[in-house]
């Protein structure tokens, strides 16, 4: 075997396999695979997944039913129907609240424009990504499903 053959063929191959062998011993300590259902990867800080309608600390809803989120939505997947607040039945601090708030999760592209458009910070996109389901009807998320429970 001449020197040229060693330099041009054998040496690069050996170098390449050397890197492979090194990685094998490194991966024994820390596998690259995330064992998903058992362990979860840390989501990025700005990950946008499932929507949540938040509340104030007093328990009142933040949403005032202004439909700006529906206007900003590029997929037209949000439907808002507003109703007037009365002194007896007060849901939000403003004049109106959302009587119906529905999101079609199949249409939604999780762009976060609704979150940007919201003047009161009512709708936020959290990190729950497990949204798959069997039936098409299950993807119309109603206000009851989206609204945050009252914290004690």
């Amino acid at each position, binding site marked *: 075997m001449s020197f040229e053959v060693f330099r041009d063929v054998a040496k690069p191959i050996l170098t390449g396999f050397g890197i492979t062998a090194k990685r094998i011993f490194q991966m024994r300590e820390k596998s690259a695979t995330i064992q*998903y259902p058992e362990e979860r990867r840390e989501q990025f800080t700005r990950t946008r997944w499932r929507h949540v309608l938040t509340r104030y600390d007093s328990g009142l809803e933040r949403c005032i039913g202004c439909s700006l989120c529906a206007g900003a939505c590029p997929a037209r997947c949000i439907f808002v129907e507003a109703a007037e607040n009365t002194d007896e039945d007060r849901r939000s601090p403003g004049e109106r609240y959302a009587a119906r708030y529905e999101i079609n999760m199949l249409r939604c*592209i999780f762009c976060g424009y609704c979150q940007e458009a919201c003047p009161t910070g009512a709708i936020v996109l959290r990190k729950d*990504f497990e949204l798959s389901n069997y039936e098409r009807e299950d993807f119309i998320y109603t206000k009851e499903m989206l609204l945050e429970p009252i914290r004690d």
Partner: protein
Amino acid sequence: MPKRIETVVFHDSSTPVIGGIEKAGVVVVAPLESILNQARANALWPLTFGLACCAIEMMSTVAARFDLARFGSEAFRATPRQADVMIIAGRLSKKMAPVLRQIYDQMPEPKWVISMGACASSGGVYNNYAIVQGADQVVPVDVYVPGCPPSPDALIYAVMKLQQKIKHRKFGKLIELKPRSLDEESA
């Protein structure tokens, strides 16, 4: 890989219970239905049907970081004759719809369909003349995955949901029962 095998029915009350599973010598008794369902659910070979950007996430699901092979689905087949589940990844144009239907018809029974992403499931932002508004207008869809695109873990969750559906499949029934959710299963 830690315990991904579900309990098969074992028959012997006198034998000791090891890890929740009763060992009954060498004889294992289980309904044929259950064995077939286990086999089908744990070796789902997907058909590559990447139509758009969702396909990138689908490829990422098979790669080392998420590793769909842990669920027996690593063998992506380019021919419908060898595939069990079709993952429609991306927007389905009206021109592509007959092709999709033909490839679905070429798959052998039993077959399943995962509709991946907003565009395949409902049309997403493309509410126009060129895009089919939901792949279920062309083929029956078993599991829908929202997201634009769904992350690899979201797709793995959908595969787990599909496995759950297959495991609860009853033979000889025309109407399939709605499977229990994964949360109830683990509880």
